[in-house]
Each structure stands twice: as C-alpha cells, then as structure tokens.
C-alpha cells in the first residue's frame, strides 16, 4: 500500500475524482521511492541498455537506455510514431512477432538479459506482464476463467484458485462489480470493466513488471480514472511502465516520465526525469515544446 492509500482505508469507496487529485499531489520528486514502513517493493528492476529496433530495413527505435527501478511507475510519452510502443514490446519480447523484426542492445530483468541465448521466452513474459490498448479478454471464457487463464496457459500450480481469483479482481478494482457473476461471459462487461479484467488477468501470474500500452485510449473518462486508481494501487508492489498519449494521465500516475521523439529518423528517447520535473522544468527544448502542447 502506498502512503496516500494508507490514509484512506476505504480506497475503493473513494470517489475517482478524489483519488485522481490525491495521487497527483503525492507524486513529487521528494516523496518518490518513499513507502510505508515495512512494505518493500515486490517488483524487480528492469533496465534497457542501448536498445534499438528495426522492422526490416526501417530503423524504428535507436539507442534507448532506461532504468526502471523496482516499484516505480514510469510513463512514456511522445507523439505518434516515436517508437514508444515498439520500445515496450521489446521489453517483454513481443517485438519479435513481426516477421522482419530485429533489435540490438540488452534488456536486463533483475540483471539478466532477457535476450540471452537459451532464455525461455514464455518465462520472461510471465514476469513481464502486458495490458493492451484495446481490452482483449478471451470471449469464449467466463470472467473467472479469464482471470485464471494465465495460470492454465503457463501450467502453474496454485493452492487456492478462489483466493487468487478474488485477490486479482480486488487489486484490479473489479471485484465488487463482478463477484456475483464470475461464471458469466466476459463479453457482457463494459469496455472499462473489460480492461480491468485484463489487468486482473495479468496480475494472476504474479508478474514483477507490468507494461501498459495506452491502456485507456479506448475508454471513456470515467473508466480511465478507475484504471488510474488501479495503477496507483498496484505501483506499491510492482514496476509499471505505461505508454500514454495523455499528458495529464502521465502526470497523475507516474513517478518518472520519459519523452520519446522521432525527428525523421528512428525514434529516440530525448529526456527522462521525475514526472514533476518533466512537466515543470524540462531540460530539453523539444520536451518543453511537446509538454506545452506546441507540437505533437
């Protein structure tokens, strides 16, 4: 539990408005990394070193080095086509599904290169979960089956499935809405509920890192705020990397923000800093132009 949530034990009852503003207040460079005594981050650190990405001959991303320390939320912002999505897909090795894709550099999870020869890629993806732009629950499964689908897919052993199911749905902020219809098909949920279901599904396999690729871009503002609540809640126990087009969202949920930009050539990471600094006193002129809305 993070500090601001501790002050409000009925976190789920809190209005979304209040949650948003209180979390905004809590993110400043000073209280970064500060946690309630006795809680220690469960997540693992993720580090990208000189990552490049290609699609065939097209050099899409160049030389990105970023350090995501355990238990932080990092937002990746920048105009369309700047390589943010490509970058996070290199982190959990989803990049390689495009047949002509190639990459360079290293991605270190707990100090180990996820691209090292002989690595079991399915294990990597279990540790680095992902939530997509469009909610994509499995329509042939019930709500409960969806949450536990990762367990089944990876053939993990779980002692008490009901407990895990409840825990994941609670953490994703969906338990109260669906606890009476776990056997219903997931297609009947609203878009925002579906997206939280997808988050719950990712949580079930206990990832150390959660990647979110514009998770709110297909949702209405109310659902967006609920997801942001969820992110704040989760940030105490895992490392989160979120791609967003919405700068207010970056400001509301993240500890750090990295600005990506492509100036004709491959996309590059221009600047990374604590979120409040990026928005108040960016070092790079291009970042300032972007965050002040002058382009992009």
């Amino acid at each position: 539990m993070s500090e601001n949530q501790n002050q409000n034990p009925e976190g789920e009852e809190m209005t979304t408005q209040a949650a948003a503003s209180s979390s905004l207040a809590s993110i400043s460079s000073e209280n970064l990394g500060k946690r309630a005594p006795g809680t220690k981050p469960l997540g693992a650190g993720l580090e990208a070193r000189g990552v490049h990405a290609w699609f065939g001959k097209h050099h899409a991303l160049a030389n990105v080095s970023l350090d995501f320390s355990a238990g932080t939320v990092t937002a990746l912002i920048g105009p369309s086509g700047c390589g943010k999505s490509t970058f996070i897909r290199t982190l959990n090795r989803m990049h390689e599904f495009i047949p002509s894709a190639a990459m360079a550099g290293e991605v270190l999870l707990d100090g180990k290169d996820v691209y090292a020869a002989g690595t079991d890629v399915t294990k990597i993806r279990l540790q680095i979960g992902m939530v997509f732009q469009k909610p994509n629950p499995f329509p042939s499964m019930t709500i409960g089956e969806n949450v536990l689908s990762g367990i089944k897919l990876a053939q993990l052993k779980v002692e008490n499935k009901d407990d895990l199911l409840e825990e994941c749905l609670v953490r994703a902020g969906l338990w109260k809405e669906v606890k009476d219809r776990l056997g219903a098909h997931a297609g009947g949920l609203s878009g925002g509920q579906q997206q939280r279901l997808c988050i719950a599904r990712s949580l079930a396999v206990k990832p150390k890192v959660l990647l979110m690729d514009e998770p709110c871009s297909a949702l209405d503002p109310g659902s967006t705020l609920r997801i942001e609540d969820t992110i704040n809640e989760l940030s105490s126990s895992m490392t989160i990397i979120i791609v967003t087009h919405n700068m207010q969202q970056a400001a509301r949920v993240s500890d750090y923000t990295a600005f990506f930009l492509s100036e004709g050539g491959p996309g590059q990471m221009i600047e990374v800093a604590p979120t409040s600094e990026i928005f108040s006193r960016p070092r790079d002129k291009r970042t300032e132009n972007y965050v002040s809305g002058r382009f992009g």
Partner: protein
Amino acid sequence: MSETTFLDIKPRQPWKATPKDRAITFSVLLLALALAGAAVKLTGLSGKLGFALSFLVFSTVLQIFVSVRKFGRKALGDSIATSLIYTGATLTFLPVGSILFITIKNGVAGLRWNLFTTDMFNASFLDPIGNGGLLHALVGTVMLIVIAMIISVPMGIMTALYLTEIRGKGSTLIQFVVQAMSGVPSVVAGLFIFTSVILLTPLKASTTAGALALTVLMIPTVTRTAQEVLLLVPADLREAGLAMGATQWKTVATIVVPAARNGLITATILGVARIAGETAPLIFTIGGADKLNLNPFKDYQSAMPFYVWKGLTLGTPESIQRSWTAILILLILVLSLFIAARTLGGRRFK
C-alpha cells in the same frame, strides 16, 4: 542536437535459432535417421514407408526430449503438438511427391512421337504404345474446353457482375446458389445433361453435350474467382466514373472490367483447370470415340481423361502404359494452366 548515426550497431534477431540450436536439431535428425535405419534392419517393418514412419516417430520423440530438457515439463504439451503438426504437414505432402514422381516415371516411359500424330482408329488399346495415338483425345479435350469456355466465361463473369455491381435483391440467394453449384458432384452434372439434352433434344452424345456438362462445373469456379477480383477494384474508381456522369454500363465496361482484366483471365484459367481433368461427366455425354472428330455437334468424341480412364479400366499392361503417358500429358497441361494463373494473378490470389 547530437545527430548520431548508428552504423556500428548491427541489428540482430536473438529469437532465431542459434548455431548451437541448429546443431542440436541436426544431430537429432541424424540420430533419428540412424535409429530408423536400425529399426527397419532389426524388426519386420517394411521398406521405404516403414523407414519414413519410424523416422518420424524417432525424430518426434527425440525432439520432445530435447525441448523438455531445455525448458522443463511445461514444454511437453507444446513440443508434442509442434511435432504432431510438423508430422501432419509432412504426411500431407508425401502423396503429392509420390504422385508427381510416379506419373513422371511411368509416363515418360511411354512417350512416343506417334501419340501426337495419330488416333486409335487403326489401333487397339491392347497394342503396344507404338501403335496408334491420342491425337483424337487431345483435340477432343481442346474442343471441349473451348466450347465450355465460350458458354461459361460470359455467364460466370456476368453472374459475378450481378453480385458485385447490381447487388440486387436476389444477391444473397444467388451467392448461395453459386456456392451450392460448386458442390454439385461431377457425376450429377453428367447425368443432368444426359437426361435433359441427350434424351430430349436432337443433340446426341457429342462434344457439345460433354462441354455442356463441363459448363455446369465451370460456371461456379469462374463466378467465384471473378467476384473476388471485381471486389478488389476500388469503389472510388466506380464512383469517379459515375460522378463524371457516365452511365453504370459505361463505368463497368470502361473502368471496372479493364481494371480487373488480369484477374478475370485468371478466373477463366482456373475454371479451365477445374474441368480439364474431369472424367465422370464425360462418361455419360461424349460417347467415347477412337477416331479424330472435328465436328462439335455430331458423333462421339474422346478426351484425355476419358482416354486415361479407358486404359485404366481395360487393365492390361499396354493399356495402363497408355493411361500413365496420357495422364502425364494432361498433368503438364493442367500445371501450365495453373502456373499461368499464378503468374497473371500475382499475389492477389491465395
């Protein structure tokens, strides 16, 4: 702004098999080969097929063993499935290879020049292949194809135009009917022409009667391919034509059809390939001649598949040699049509 070019950075694809992985796969296959050889030697498994099957079994088991050792027990299901899928895919291509191999091997043995210059009027199927030929069958097949094309290409393309351009109330129904028609067994097409045309009209068993039966089979193929092609013509081309004040007829004739020309030719070729090898409908409709017959409306006719069929049913070594050689020639014909359709159709077709 620091402009860096990353020329010294080499793209890599670490998810691709490493030389080590390749070496392991290679040695697994080698080991399976050796084990299969031993199995054929030591047990009663017969010949090539026994060898192939035991090779598949051994390589599957070894491959599963390797991946489970590398990735643990959860890789078991995946590697079994992968092996089964590879095995299944291999098994489906064995017959194709076997058919091509045996047809070429047996067919070439009977190739003689006289086949293309004479008919069977002064020869018997039971004679050695040096006697007589299949000129009449070749000419018969060409005539059947030409007549069937004259009827079914306009009909097929018009039906496709109805489905893509007019899109009238009956479109859904016609779409269903065309699909149902493509499932009509060829033997039924032959029986239909027999009971309608041959029994009820002055036209008796002849080239035209055979071509009519083939038409029933060709129309749906031409229609479906033509429809696919016409749908690929962008809608804005049509709208551009109409917006200039052209009639729909002018737009279709001068814009849509020319834009789809190559595809429509492909549709025709695929239709021809569909009927060129048909035997069953001809049994009821062309009578089966041994003599060259250039009159499309009168007297019995022969055809390449019919010639093959006759040789096969007679069952002597000489007649079967005739079948193999004739089917080789027919196969070359179908293959060239197929390659022509591919080349013209380019990538737009499956």
